[in-house]
């Protein structure tokens, strides 16, 4: 009886000892040829790309001031300034209202045409201001390294907007589509650049018998209209709160 108990105890101790040996090994020996030679993307059951955003926009408001360059405007001054207010409905979308005020001058081309051919496009109806509703789709959120210790967060946006532009004679509708890039200096201050195609109804400034300095001054509502396509570059500073 006693003998059996000692035997049993010896077996138990041996098994316990063996079972722990594998766990106690702390060094792994791997053949060099089995080491990874290039980086690979691990696959996870539950892919969570962004665990905690530094820039949280959901539910917040954003105000911005911006300057626009109407890059392919032939006749009128190619700049305007604006103010915008956005409501971020979630981390992926935001809606905003934009108000623009157009510079009242003429483009460099118009000045040259006046100098060379005495064509005065001040006689044509000019844009004065505009109001648009803007929809932003925050397609990409990310960060980039500025130095070893500094990163900057970014948003790449898809943009759609619709609104009205007031000319000297009447108001005209327009839509825009484009892409925007936001660079965050902090979690609530960012610089934004938008590149848009502006498709809008507007008067044609080249009216026969109305633009030459010697022509009689035309009525601004007498100009025909058509759809114009203008490339726009916006640069703005934003505050998120």
């Amino acid at each position, binding site marked *: 009886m006693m003998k059996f108990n000692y035997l049993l105890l010896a077996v138990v101790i041996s098994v316990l000892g063996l079972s722990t040996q594998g766990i106690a090994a702390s060094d792994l020996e791997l*053949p060099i040829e089995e080491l990874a030679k*290039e*980086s690979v993307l691990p696959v996870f059951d539950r892919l969570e790309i962004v*665990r905690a955003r530094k820039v949280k926009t959901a539910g917040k408001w954003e105000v911005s001031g911006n300057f626009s360059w109407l890059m392919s405007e032939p006749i009128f001054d190619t700049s305007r300034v604006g103010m915008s207010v956005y409501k971020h409905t979630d981390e992926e979308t935001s809606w905003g209202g934009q108000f623009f005020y157009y510079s009242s001058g003429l483009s460099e081309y118009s000045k040259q045409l006046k100098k060379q051919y005495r064509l005065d496009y001040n006689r044509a109806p000019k844009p004065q201001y505009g109001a648009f509703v803007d929809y932003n789709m925050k397609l990409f959120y*990310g960060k*980039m390294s500025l130095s*070893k210790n500094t*990163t900057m967060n970014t948003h790449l946006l898809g943009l759609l907007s619709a609104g009205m532009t007031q000319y000297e004679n009447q108001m005209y509708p327009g839509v825009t589509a484009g892409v925007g890039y936001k660079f965050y200096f902090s979690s609530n201050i960012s610089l934004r650049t938008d590149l848009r195609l502006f498709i809008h109804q507007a008067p044609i400034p080249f009216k026969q018998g109305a*633009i030459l300095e010697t022509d009689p001054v035309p009525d601004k509502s007498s100009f025909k209209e058509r759809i114009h396509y203008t490339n726009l570059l916006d640069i703005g500073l934003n505050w998120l709160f």
Partner: protein
Amino acid sequence: MKKILLMPFILILLMLVPQARSQESDVEELNLIQLELDKKSSPDTEDDESSEAAAPVKSSSHDTKSQGVSEMTYEELSRLSDFKQVSVIQRRYLPRTQRFQAFIGPSMTLNDPWFNVMGASLKLGYNLTETWGIEGNYSFMSTDKTNALKELSRENNITTENFVYVKNYYSLNLNWTPLYGKMTWLNKKIVYYDIYFNLGFGATEIQNGNKQDTFSIGTGQIFSISKAYAFRWDISWNFFDAKQVDTSQGTYNNVIISAGFSFFFPEANYR
């Protein structure tokens, strides 16, 4: 009788002990993982994205030294202890040093009010380092009069043959790539990118066949698709002198945007 009672107890004990060890080991391992994650995130606690979990992480040997972690050779990596030493081989997702880059893509001039100028750009570059590279660019353009030019000619009786437009443009650029990063597409996928700036000098052939000296500045972004392919967009702002509408000599500027695909070769030399 006692023996019969003792046997199940011993059996249960035998089964439980390794399990308990295993659980303890799991907990310990989870704690270690947490420690490692904490250690990794501690240098920039403000920083947020845990996307590192799903992607290769970047740092240089300089980073490793600065964080007080001893540097290891590749051979030493085969003798790692049990998760206390985690070796993450870190590099840019798309290495570029001593590799060529060939790019092709459609391009257009954004700021010409009189002509719709569209074409294609071909670029061939060589990266001396991850940051610096040189690149040759050739863009050929097709031109179509805009409604504004037709109306100006028809309604205001202006001869527009001397209006300047670009037929083609070539340059040699110095590329500087100081910024790299990553972004998530709708929180579903990680995309790696570089942002570069360039300075270039070349020539623009205009409508009358003259070739004008051209200075350019530009910027662009390269989104990695794999270690050999990338999507790239590029904006170049070109300046050249030519005769203006009022026949005086003046400086023209063209903003040319292009977007397309880049192919990197030869295959990256990883180690």
